[in-house]
């Protein structure tokens, strides 16, 4: 029996609750404790992912109660995202050792690691649960810890950015709970598979459409898609670097995975108009995100806007609803997490070492921090989507899906988005490598400390590996895509 599944969710959460108690006298212990727990979670999710790859989706009934009466955890191919979540969180924890000792006041460090563990447990719970209300509870858990982690850096406008993020998140959460209430009122159950079955027999379409529209809008707000992205740039740029990586690479993806969870519920309703809207919103978001990124001087703001653009790619892939396009979207959810984590950690290491944030001030850093800049170069090539890297696969499948669906316009959008980002990155790399430093002390800047450099290099290697071994994730999520597109 796979008790790994519930324990993979419960252990990080309880460990997060124990961190302040254990590390009361010894703040150094908090980080070691967090890294150990996250390593265990990585092992557990790797076991679960290998099991789903071999034997297909499986579920676990909490408390021994059968599905609609108790809570059912359902680990399917999309839940394999839990492995990516654990790997990236492990690297972020290793990275945040020296960074946090300097960036955060002493008293906040234990609570920082406690919040990160709770964030990890909430994300794993979110991707594995098969129960609607459980999904809401874990989404709130991730939300509360993310609001605090954005503000933990204590910058001048950190609290205001966190407050805007909180209001946007809480309004969309209230809307999601309202839609869960509508679905419960219609079907009488909260288990996703059971609700899907019973929704097919509902005659009055109005409440079903309301629940579908409400949840889609709410999850798109949480994913930071263009028209409803207002909270994202400040929240992702002002937070400490490890939190940028966690929120831009992982937390934002929960909105997409939430969408992937609720779309099969509405199999009976014709989803064509919804997919059309998603495709157009995604396309607009691709161009708008890339366009805004072009004008940013601050590296972190640029990376935050490029997240909005890549979320646009994923939503565009979902909107095209073809086999190829949805596979591309699924792949890009995973690969973009690796790429964005590598980019944010590399840029953060540069800011940490040199103290400068804008393109102009960071000129000539290529010579001072060769390895970090190399990792940033690999990340930049991946985000543009050049062939050997991980970013290429997702965009390639989405472009193919657009052509297959007879919508060449969207394929052009995919290309245009990549070109705009390429223009910015060319300027950035030109500044790092070929321009004379605009500040003398840039030459005195030393390479990042080992425990910050190692995760950055590992992530850059994973970006290239993700590109070369791209076949495996595609095969892994193929059955889930088949169910979603076949049933949709």
């Amino acid at each position, binding site marked *: 029996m796979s008790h790994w599944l519930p324990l993979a969710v419960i252990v990080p959460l309880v460990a997060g609750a124990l961190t302040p108690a254990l590390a009361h006298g010894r703040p150094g212990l908090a980080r070691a404790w967090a890294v150990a727990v996250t390593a265990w979670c990585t092992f557990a999710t790797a076991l679960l992912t290998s099991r789903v790859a071999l034997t297909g989706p499986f579920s676990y009934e909490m408390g021994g109660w059968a599905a609609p009466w108790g809570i059912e955890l359902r680990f399917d191919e999309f839940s394999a995202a839990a492995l990516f979540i654990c790997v990236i969180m492990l690297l972020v924890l290793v990275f945040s050792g020296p960074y946090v000792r300097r960036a955060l006041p002493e008293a906040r460090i234990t609570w920082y690691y406690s919040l990160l563990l709770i964030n990890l447990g909430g994300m794993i719970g979110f991707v594995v649960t098969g129960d609607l*209300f459980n999904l809401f*509870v874990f989404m*709130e858990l991730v*939300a*509360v810890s993310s*609001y*605090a982690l954005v*503000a933990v850096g204590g910058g*001048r*406008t950190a*609290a*205001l950015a*966190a*407050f805007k993020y*909180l*209001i946007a998140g*809480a*309004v969309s*959460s*209230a809307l999601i*709970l*309202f839609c*869960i*209430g509508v679905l*419960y*009122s219609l079907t009488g159950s*909260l288990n996703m598979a059971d609700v899907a079955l019973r929704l097919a027999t509902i005659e009055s379409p109005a409440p079903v459409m309301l629940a579908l529209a409400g949840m889609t809008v709410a999850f798109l707000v949480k994913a930071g898609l263009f028209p409803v992205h207002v909270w994202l740039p*400040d929240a992702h740029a002002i937070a400490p670097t490890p939190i940028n990586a966690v929120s831009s690479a992982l937390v934002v993806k929960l909105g997409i995975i939430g969408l992937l969870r609720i779309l099969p519920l509405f199999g009976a309703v014709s989803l064509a108009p919804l997919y059309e809207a998603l495709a157009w919103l995604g396309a607009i978001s691709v161009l708008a995100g890339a366009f805004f990124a072009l004008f940013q001087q601050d590296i972190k703001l640029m990376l935050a806007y490029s997240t909005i653009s890549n979320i646009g790619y994923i939503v565009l892939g979902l909107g095209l609803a073809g086999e190829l396009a949805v596979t591309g979207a699924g792949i890009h959810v995973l690969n973009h997490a690796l790429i964005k984590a590598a980019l944010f950690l590399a840029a953060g290491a540069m800011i940490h070492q040199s103290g400068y944030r804008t393109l102009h001030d960071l000129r000539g850093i290529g010579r001072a921090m060769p390895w970090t800049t190399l990792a940033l170069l690999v990340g930049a090539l991946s985000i543009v989507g050049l062939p050997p890297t991980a970013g290429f696969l997702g965009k390639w499948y989405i472009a193919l899906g657009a052509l297959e669906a007879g919508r060449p316009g969207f394929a052009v959008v995919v290309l245009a988005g990549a070109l705009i980002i390429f223009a910015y990155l060319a300027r950035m790399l030109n500044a790092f490598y070929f321009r004379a430093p605009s500040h003398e002390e840039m030459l005195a800047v030393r390479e990042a400390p080992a425990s910050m450099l190692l995760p950055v290099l590992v992530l850059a290697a994973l970006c290239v590996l993700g590109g070369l071994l791209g076949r495996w994730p595609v095969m892994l999520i193929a059955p889930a895509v088949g169910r979603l597109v076949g049933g949709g």
Partner: protein
Amino acid sequence: MAALWGNIDYAAFVVLFCIGLYIIIAKQNLIKKLLGLNIMETAVFAFVVTSGMVDGGTAPIVGPGMSGPFASPLPHAMVLTGIVVAVSITALALCLIIEIYRQCGTLEADELKGAE
């Protein structure tokens, strides 16, 4: 629209939801926005509790003397969790407000927009 009269309670909760949304969007003071958020969340909880109600039903406590139709206990469990979530978010939001006031000296959204 005749059906709406049958569900007049739901209509009232939607109105409360929109009053909360109005307060969040239109009012400038951050504490006022937070109260609007709480009004909106309480309206959603009221909607969920009301969906579990049954005509002439009593509390879902199956004691010796209890009889008659019982209200469904599932929405009550959901709303209990929801209320705890709402107070958690409110506590965090208030501390962010205290931090914003300490740094920017004002709680009016339009003045804060200029401070960035």
